[in-house]
């Protein structure tokens, strides 16, 4: 079942074309990677889907409903959640309250059975931040802040999760932990689209990969196909880095 269908999406900022006629669809339950050179329009695409900006033209269909142009809070309540490239947490707030906010405001249809504290505790446990419940978000390390952002997004009970460079700045061990988390998220039935530069993650957990370049779709396919694609290598991967850097 197609959970997300994007047709003819276009967005310009003044004279700069950020998104130039993008078309693709996502099946429910997939983990799709979104890669491309810096400035290709990946985060802009996320912004268009999550409602942070409105498209100039095009249709974004989520579970059969056109959501293009809706406000972010509406789209969140429809079931799409996201994280941000530059981690946007509420620095002075406790970890617990972050997740509580997502839980209280994110979903108006299916309130889970337990009390809010129980549900928040479950999510804390899921992302392995249980020990930090009362900590001030601003005091956490970057890796934990990223995990907190994911937790807050999960608390809104999404069906589609957009992860924007959630692995950036993490060392290989932390990357492995995060990959495990993404797998667990998919097991819960949540579809994931992830923007990433950490090729190891793309290769190992993505079912499909979409490549953007200058605001257009350059290529699409399985990870192995993409890494052999000549244009992708030329434009994004560079010559010797087709595979994740292992020694």
């Amino acid at each position, binding site marked *: 079942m197609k959970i997300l269908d994007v047709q003819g999406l276009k967005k310009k900022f003044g004279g700069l074309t950020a998104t130039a006629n993008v078309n693709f669809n996502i099946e429910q339950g997939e983990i799709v990677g979104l890669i491309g050179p810096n400035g290709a329009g990946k985060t802009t695409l996320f912004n268009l889907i*999550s*409602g*942070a900006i409105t498209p100039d033209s095009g249709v974004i269909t989520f579970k059969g409903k056109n959501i293009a142009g809706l*406000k*972010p*809070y509406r789209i*969140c*309540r429809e079931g799409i*959640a*996201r994280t*941000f490239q530059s981690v*946007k*947490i*509420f*620095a*002075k*707030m406790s970890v617990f*309250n972050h997740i*509580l*906010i*997502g839980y*209280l*405001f*994110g*979903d*108006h249809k299916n309130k889970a059975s337990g009390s809010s504290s129980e549900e928040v505790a479950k999510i804390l446990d899921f992302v392995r931040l249980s020990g930090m419940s009362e900590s001030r978000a601003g005091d956490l390390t970057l890796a934990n802040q990223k995990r907190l952002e994911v937790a*807050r*997004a999960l*608390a*809104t009970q999404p069906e589609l999760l957009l992860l924007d460079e959630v692995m950036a700045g993490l060392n290989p061990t932390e990357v492995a932990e995060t990959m495990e988390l993404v797998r667990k998220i998919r097991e819960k039935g949540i579809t994931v689209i992830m923007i990433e530069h950490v090729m190891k993650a793309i290769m190992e957990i993505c079912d499909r990969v979409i490549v953007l370049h200058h605001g257009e779709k350059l290529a699409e396919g399985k990870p192995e196909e993409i890494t052999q694609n000549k244009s992708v290598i030329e434009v994004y991967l560079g010559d010797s880095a087709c595979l994740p850097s292992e020694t």
Partner: protein
Amino acid sequence: MKDKTKKYSLFAGFIVILLLLISLPSYASSYRVIFVTNILMYVILTLSWVIFSGPTGYISLATAAFFGIGVYTSAVLSGTLSLPFVILIGALASFCLAFVVGSLTLRLRGMYFTMFTFALVQLISNFAHWYEVNVTGTVGRLVISLDSTIIYYSILVVFCLVLLASYFIKRSKFGLALQSIGESEEAAAHSGINVTLVKVTTFAISAFFMGAVGAVMTMRWTYVDPPTAFDIRLSFMPLLMAIFGGMGNLFSPIIGSSIFAYLEEILTTKFPYYYMLLFGGAMLLVIVFMPHGIEGVFRKFQKNNKQESAKKT
């Protein structure tokens, strides 16, 4: 545990003060009662201001506008309706204006929002003036003034209401949303919070109490006109008082505005010609040495104590 005993002692201290305030007219002179009334006016304005501008960081200078609407509502209706209704309608008028204005302007960020709220005061004041010149024919209105004790108790009621409102907003789901908006509007919106609605509603709630206190204070004056009702100083004072006191919890703005208002009253009576100079000087000292207000000084004091006891152990 220490936190809890501190909270209880603060609360107990507050109850004592409240009781003293309630019984004030019975043991104090009429002058004193009026003096405290004025101080409470500033405290309420500051608390109302902090309800919105505190957590969101949007600095509003529209306080005088909402206060003035309350004044004018009261001036128009005084004599025709009973006091509680007059106050309520004054408050609601401000609430409605703030809701409308907020919906239009809360998309403006930072400085632009502040400038707009400042302009709003001028706009409304001038409109009132134009209306009076062209429609009613006379500038200003006479008001049936009331006994200072009635005014005092009315203000005390508004004070308790704004306190309750502040307290419950802070601890509620709404308050949590406000806090998140203050830190990152984008993240808040993406977490399902209708940011515009929350901002506008809070702005309107804060205006409600500003209108209420305006409606009450009118009864003290026998005559009101646009400059008195929409006095721009009433926009700046709550802001300064909030900075002076701090905005981290409920008590800091109260303490800050009380001290500030008390100082202002003393300075205007003792040094009527220099008070602005002294005032400005005092503000400079505060900003340089106490950038986080009294609350900041308190926190530093606490921190040093903790470090001292930590060193000893």
